[in-house]
């Protein structure tokens, strides 16, 4: 079953795999160890926003490898089914590691406190429009943004406390949300949901996700009620917050390639 966008166009286009291809694939799989892939041991579903246009918001599926207590690397897809598109990578570091980075690097990263923590943090938000806020607060009381599908909330709760203190760097390489049938253009920087201003995620997106996973509002409310928010969040992260809603774009420049032989 091919993945399609809203208009039914197949993404990506292409012929089904031939029987021969399937057999080659199966053969490789049996002979090769694929070790790094076997270390993805968490699936997380959350949301992200394009840093150059935060009105574009997407549901993301992270397949996470923990390298050690301070560092995780994630392959990010746009769905959780076998036809999901690989849309980018996210790296996650502890606050301890983040503080070792120079400010120019830090500005590319985002905080996770909001996604992980309790709805009570929202009460400090005064900047969003009242109507959106009321709807959003009500919805947020029912769910956190960052969830581990299928895992009971009480099981992941301790990890959410760790996560709340981390910072992420997420590059998107395939903008399937705007209908790109193939990965086009340079990579783009993504930001995380926040409780204020242009960082607020559309509650309809969240509701659709929660319905899909049958997320229990009571379980979440109970489980997340006491997750402490970090005492301090580095102001270089979530760059748009302290810098007049500025974002970043990656552009390509043609240049003289440094060579050791002729090209191409």
């Amino acid at each position, binding site marked *: 079953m*091919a993945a399609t966008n809203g208009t039914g166009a*197949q993404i*990506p*286009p*292409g012929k*089904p795999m031939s029987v021969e*291809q399937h057999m*080659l*694939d199966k*053969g*490789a799989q049996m*002979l*090769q*160890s*694929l070790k*790094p*892939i076997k*270390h*993805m*041991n*968490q*699936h997380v579903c959350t949301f992200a926003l394009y*840093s*150059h*246009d935060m009105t574009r918001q997407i549901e993301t599926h992270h*397949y996470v490898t923990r*390298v*050690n*207590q*301070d*560092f995780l*690397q994630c392959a990010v897809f746009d769905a*959780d089914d076998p036809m999901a598109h*690989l849309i980018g*990578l996210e*790296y996650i570091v502890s606050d301890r*590691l983040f503080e070792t*980075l120079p400010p120019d690097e830090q500005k590319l990263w985002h905080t996770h406190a909001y996604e992980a923590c309790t709805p009570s943090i929202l009460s400090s938000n005064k900047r969003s429009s009242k109507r959106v806020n009321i709807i959003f607060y009500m919805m947020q009381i029912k769910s956190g943004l960052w969830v581990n599908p299928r895992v009971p909330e009480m099981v992941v709760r301790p*990890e959410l406390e760790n996560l709340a203190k981390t910072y992420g760097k997420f590059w998107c390489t*395939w903008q399937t949300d705007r209908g790109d049938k*193939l990965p*086009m253009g340079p*990579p783009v920087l993504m930001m995380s949901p926040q409780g204020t201003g*242009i960082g607020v995620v559309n509650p309809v997106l969240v509701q659709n996700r929660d319905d899909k996973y049958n997320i229990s509002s009571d379980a979440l409310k109970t489980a997340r009620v006491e997750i402490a928010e970090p005492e301090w969040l580095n102001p270089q992260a979530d760059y748009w917050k302290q810098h007049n809603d500025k*974002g*970043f*774009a*990656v*552009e390509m*420049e*043609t*240049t*003289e*390639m*440094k*060579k*050791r*032989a002729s*090209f*191409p």
Partner: protein
Amino acid sequence: MEGVNVSTHPEIPAEPTQIGTALLEKATATIQGFDPVNKIHQHLCAFHFYGHDMTRQVEAHHFCGHLNGDFRQCLIYDRPDDDGQLIGVEYIVSEELFLTLPDDEKQFWHSHEFEVKSGVLFMPGVPGPVQRKEFEKVAKTYGKVIHFWQVDKGDNLPLGIPQVMMALTKDGQPYENLAQDVENRYNISFEEERENRACIKGPSHGIHPMANAAGKGLQTVLREVECCKEGKSTRVFV
């Protein structure tokens, strides 16, 4: 048999994983679904170089899954080990799909004909005849590679902005010592494989002139932009 990659292998500074975290992840690994990742069935090894600097070459281990007969998506690691660092992604498309791309997109993509025919692109652990069947197809494809972690610089974290990478397109480009190291580690001979692959053909329409950045250097730069609130962004150059 897979050995240790002798190229740069920076250590990520950190604490070892705590027991509570490890236990949770045992639970998530057992209970949760991993469908997108379970599609990854192939390991390919090749070299990439930076789009603006051929002298910086990186051994790249691709872990690929098909979305259909014309399209593969790959995670790239610096080594195929349990502690491999996830350094980039590659998308691989058939010639037919590549030709549908606008010209200004084609520049990001590189051809695979030389890598296949020279033997430097290979599938560790897979017998030659099986690999060749696969590479009859791969030789006609194009790839788009982005790296996010410059391990060849010794970066111990993924610093900086993404790098568009290119692939080898002719003899004389790859460093002999890097190639030799891979041959020793995997007990293979690129020369021998080149002979075995002599009959494999590249793209039916020839390598497109816009591919491989049309022969130019490609560099990424970061711009600060006015993040729009209504679907349009205004670029401000800094």
